[in-house]
């Protein structure tokens, strides 16, 4: 297998292995800005047929969702190349810090636990506002992210505060209130499981979301309350 895509991967620098893809920093031409290449490599555990169809549809779906977001003015990385059969997606390189690492409790491998009194980042409230606004912009364009976590958001390290949403691997198009509410619920759960005492943080996310959503907020909010009651074996008392 010698394709342009595999050559690109071969010359690229592996940065990390995410949930389902290997992430590389690559250069299409020398002396140009780098791009980020996401390679959904073949999963040995999955049946080949299932794996091929999932990979193809996810790469294509991710590219499609990014395009829609770009058109709607949501801060997402721009698309540089797509090779769906090879499972390769090249996107704009974003310089910044993952939001998870900026918040208490989210630091690498949770080693910091004992020095809980050292959160160096102070603009938490402003950051939460940015998160709420970006998600609302995305939902107004009827795009559901599908995997909202603090790992999937980057705060750009330029002068102006700019939050970029990444990893649209599980995203899809939907105008349903249900899907938007579930999207928010996924984020709420991610906050709760990653960052201890996150309730005030998440409520400021919702506040910013509410402002941006305008008249659409009431229905989403109502549905979010319903969604929270789901899940198994929850205590129904009180």
């Amino acid at each position, binding site marked *: 297998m010698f394709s342009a895509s595999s050559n690109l991967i071969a010359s690229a620098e592996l940065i990390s292995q995410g*949930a389902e893809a290997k992430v590389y920093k690559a250069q299409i031409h020398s002396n140009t800005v780098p791009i980020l290449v996401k390679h959904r490599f073949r999963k040995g555990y999955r049946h080949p047929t*299932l794996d091929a169809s999932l990979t193809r549809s996810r790469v294509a779906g991710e590219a499609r969702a990014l395009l829609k977001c770009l058109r709607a003015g949501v801060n997402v990385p721009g698309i540089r190349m797509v090779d769906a059969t090879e499972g390769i997606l090249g996107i704009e390189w974003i310089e910044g810090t993952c939001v998870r690492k900026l918040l208490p409790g989210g630091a690498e491998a949770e080693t910091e636990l004992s020095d809980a009194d050292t959160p160096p980042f102070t603009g938490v409230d402003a950051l939460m506002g940015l998160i709420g606004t970006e998600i609302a912009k995305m939902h107004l364009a009827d795009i559901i992210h599908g995997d909202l976590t603090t790992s999937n958001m980057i705060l750009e390290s330029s002068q102006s505060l700019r939050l970029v949403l990444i990893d649209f691997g599980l995203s899809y198009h939907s105008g349903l209130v249900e899907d938007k509410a579930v999207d928010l619920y996924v984020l709420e759960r991610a906050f709760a499981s990653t960052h201890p005492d996150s309730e005030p943080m998440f409520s400021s996310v919702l506040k910013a979301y509410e402002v941006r959503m305008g008249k659409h907020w009431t229905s989403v909010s109502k549905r979010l309350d319903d969604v929270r009651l789901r899940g*198994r074996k929850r205590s129904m008392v009180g």
Partner: protein
Amino acid sequence: MPARTSRPTPLQRPDRPYLALGLEGSANKLGAGIIKHAKDGSSTVLSNIRHTYITPPGEGFQPRDTALHHRKWIMDVIKDALQKAGVSIHDLDCICYTKGPGMGAPLQSVALVARTLSQLYGKPLVGVNHCVGHIEMGREITGAQNPVVLYVSGGNTQIIAYSRQCYRIFGETLDIAVGNCLDRFARVINLSNDPSPGYNIEQEAKKGKRLVPLPYTTKGMDVSLSGILTSTEAYTQDKRFRLDGAESDSEDVVTPADLCFSLQETIFSMLVEITERAMAHIGSKEVLIVGGVGCNERLQEMMGIMAKERGGQVFATDERFCIDNGIMIAQAGLLAFRMGHCTDLADSTCTQRFRTDQVHVAWRA
């Protein structure tokens, strides 16, 4: 993983050997087991007895009948456990029972016995969360330090990780549990419930070759399984379906084996995927599989491949400790007991709903 093992564990070495009896009966398995925590900090399984309520093919177990089964067998199972362990009931330090989650009637029958024994012999009671029992036993047997836990059984499907004295649920099923999905499909194609429907699906799936398209429904770190069950059932109404499994060269056929194979491949892929997502999210390299479905070798194999691709490791146990048992209740109960936790008689109730993250894990740092 440089986890919080750096923190001192709050659990002190025992000043003398401790013995606990664990009683489990939250579903169709009735179990009693005796565990010993020695002075050097090691634990020994002295006995682990189980009696399973098996229904005819095509039928599931009803709460009422299951409770009757437990009531009929529990004295034998406990006596057997004491005898195998070679200890007297007077030697025990505490009696642990499953407080929940599970089926109401079977839980109550077992809790009643636990309470009676506790009163008769003046032994303290410890109510245990079933899911925490699974996790603690898995950790004890495999030696996994701080793994991401995939808990898959007939009533539960959860991805769990430990943080700050709590087993937090990162992902779970939005509707039915994976074991429930497999068991119900076994009923549709009339597979035997002996030794368990899941085991027979696994054997059947080994003969399957063809992967039929089924929905693939992961939602973030959650999964939804009810639609997959419906779709698989729908294939049994398809005109290509042959219940006798007869293959044909001229015709395009779907056999029960193909459906078992497709069902397993699809749902296990989903489970491995969400586990991988959780591992990536919290930066862990260890996975522990617990619960009845955890003894499925195909699931273990798939998880092993995934862990290897990530440079990690998978821990699993065999049917003695995967499938519901009394010893895991004894293990989790004794850990709590050594931290000074007891359940008063007035509080020794059971509950069908008892989430894993409601338990204060006092014995871990």
